[in-house]
């Protein structure tokens, strides 16, 4: 899967999630060529335990225009750039704000 396609899905998911949950503010995308990796800033979620995020992962769903798997984490605004990311996601410097 080309990186452009993953980015397209990332933006689609970010837009859908913001549309469906007004408590979501900024959305950060961590680029990867095999899956969509999103951190969504939410004003009403519990604090991340142990200062570390563990995203929820969902399989691809081509029928709904989601050709690659996705990993999505919700964090509180004060946790941006403070909580640790999954090792495979890299670090916060790789984050691109897409929503």
């Amino acid at each position, binding site marked *: 899967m080309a990186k452009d396609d993953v980015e397209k899905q990332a933006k689609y998911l970010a837009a859908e*999630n*913001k549309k*469906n949950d007004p408590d979501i503010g900024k959305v950060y995308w961590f680029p990867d060529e095999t899956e969509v990796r999103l951190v*969504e800033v939410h004003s009403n979620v519990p604090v991340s335990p142990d200062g570390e995020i563990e995203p929820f*992962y969902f399989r691809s769903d081509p029928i*709904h225009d989601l050709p690659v*798997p996705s*990993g999505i984490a919700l964090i509180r605004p004060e946790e941006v750039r403070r909580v640790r990311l999954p090792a495979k996601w890299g670090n916060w410097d790789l984050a691109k704000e897409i929503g």
Partner: protein
Amino acid sequence: MNWREAFLRQARSENSVRNRLNDPQIEYSHRLHYLQMDTEKLAKGYRAPPNDYDHSPQVHTGFVRFLQTLKGNISIRGILRYGPGPGFNLFIDSLLDLATKIEQLAPSAAGLTKPNPEYPLRDIGTGEIRAPVDYDFPGFSPRELSMIRMEALIRQLLPIQN
């Protein structure tokens, strides 16, 4: 079997046991115990990346956050036969308070003073030591609308092959 498959298999089995406990002769706390464990395994299953054989999810609480994540999930919204309108989000929102209470049933979250369905505790009001099987667990009545909705959601989520 990878971690994701294993957690979801366990969740399905625990749900099956929970259904078998739906008997007036069996103390209700046992069903709540399985409900708490079942929802924890369900959320943990989705915390494991598909095809990951290396890392078991470590976070024990996560059911509330899992439901919040579902609100934007187009695939699951479709599987549960909700359209693009606000219905699915309203449905999930209506369950978040109960999901929080279910998470807090875990002994590690309940601590020594809040009721949990597994270990005896001292009642703050009376000072009496009580076994969970003798506790009423108000707010978790199977006849409450939120519990009926939660049961419906779990029943629909568990069979999804992810």
